[in-house]
């Protein structure tokens, strides 16, 4: 008997829960709008949600938000490519030499819990106030999860697969490319997904902090001009982009790991 995982049926209760969630969110926005219109909230601190929605058009027409989006996306992509190449390579080397893994794995884990983004002034000195500082911040923060998940993925390859490779007299290179790497790929992708999330957070954060680049800089610019509705709209746009990015990564991960 084969067991096939069927997708969970979405019940009517789930739909109504999602509707309640969305409805509550809209009700909250209307409530805030009412509080501002009746003077209970200062519109110079919290702009009305309707004004924020109207500001989106301005962001596209006047603030080059599409160009800024692609700038930030390019930084993320470059950091992602770098972290994939270096992270997987370091992970493979560490997994290949057990002594090295035992010596350094706890260091990599400690590195992951360190507040790396605070080193951005250091990178500003080394690279200057430019995109490389931002990319390096994204790269560094994304590196530990990719290394750790590569080690975990290759170590977790099923013994039977490794033995099949041995029985075919595969060379170490063939064993890696035909058996170990494909088997570890779903786990490695979990690391890349986590790494990309960290990279995006740090890239937008560093852009905001050093006032350079794409979406992060836009928020800083608008805040410094005291363009309240524009600032809120830009923040909403960044949240929207982040959420879409996370959902896309999640879908890609599910595609790689169809059955859990």
């Amino acid at each position, binding site marked *: 008997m084969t067991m096939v995982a069927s997708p969970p049926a979405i019940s009517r209760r789930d739909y109504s829960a999602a509707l*309640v969630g969305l409805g509550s969110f809209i009700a909250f926005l209307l409530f805030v709008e009412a509080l501002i219109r009746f003077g209970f909230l200062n519109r110079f601190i919290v702009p009305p949600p309707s004004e924020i929605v109207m500001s989106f058009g301005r962001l596209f027409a006047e603030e080059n938000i599409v160009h800024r989006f692609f700038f930030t996306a390019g930084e993320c992509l470059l950091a992602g490519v770098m972290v994939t190449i270096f992270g997987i390579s370091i992970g493979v080397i560490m997994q290949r030499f057990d002594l090295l893994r035992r010596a350094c794995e706890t260091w990599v884990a400690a590195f992951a819990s360190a507040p790396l983004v*605070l080193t951005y*002034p250091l990178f*500003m000195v080394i690279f200057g106030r430019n995109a490389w500082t931002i990319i390096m911040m994204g790269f560094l923060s994304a590196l530990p999860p990719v290394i750790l998940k590569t080690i975990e993925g290759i170590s977790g390859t099923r013994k039977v697969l490794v033995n099949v490779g041995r029985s075919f007299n595969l060379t170490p290179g063939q064993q890696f490319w035909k058996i170990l790497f494909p088997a570890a790929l779903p786990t490695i992708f979990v690391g890349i997904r986590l790494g990309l*999330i960290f990279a995006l*957070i740090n890239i937008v954060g560093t852009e905001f902090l050093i006032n350079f680049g794409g979406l992060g800089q836009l928020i800083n610019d608008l805040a410094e001009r005291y363009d309240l509705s524009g600032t809120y709209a830009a923040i909403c746009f960044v949240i929207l982009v982040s959420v879409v990015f996370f959902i896309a990564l999640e879908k890609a991960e599910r595609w790689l790991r169809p059955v859990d």
Partner: protein
Amino acid sequence: MAETGRLRHAAVAAPLISQVTLLRIVIILGVLAAWEFLAHSGWLYRDVVPSLLAIGRALIKLLSDRNYYFNLGVTAAEIGTALAIGGSAGLAVGLLLGGNRFLSKAFEPYLYYLGPTPKIIFFPVMIMWFGVGPESKVALGTLSCFFPVALNVAAGMRQIDKVLIRVGHSFRASTWQMVQKIYLPAMRHPIINGVRLGFGFALIGTLLAETKLSNKGIGFLIIQTYSVFDMPGMYAMLIVLFVLAIGANALIGRLGGLENIKRN
């Protein structure tokens, strides 16, 4: 007999320093030597990579500076307050969502997707709401640590053994008694894990806010060293900060018994 013999043999053969420790020492010495070489090579701009001696001197100067401890106290107070407010709010929301499937389906996706967004972008809003003082830093730290605590507690609550919950109900425990006697003790590890993550996020949020706009705190001191190009001072400050952050993280994990879970 054979086991005893093997043990005795192992005891005799055990080297003074294990291979792992030896390799670690070699790596550390190699990195330090490479650093010193780079410092004197002239390949980078002067003082971008200061000599180890200069960093050591800066470290001693930093640790004997009373002003540093005052700023450390300010940052610690901000992080502590942020963790207390964000952690409590996260705990309450996590308990609510974890205990009610409908509420979880309705609101948890928002938390799940908002959780990993870059919180520093909310700093201009926090300044408008709370001013330029420590309050805005505490607010950003609170916002940063709320999400991991709430999501961990909600997930932890769903993993509680149903038998324990039935035992509570069979004793006719009130909601408060259920929280106090069943939910919280059964969720000690997810809560501590959430607090550990929350602490990391609160630390980053608070310190980044300090680097952006502040006149006290460790973040302010770091950006000051950048402004006056005091590179040994910056390295010293980052080293101390990393040691404190990693140490605090490990301490929270140890207090919560996370080490024991991993071993089991």
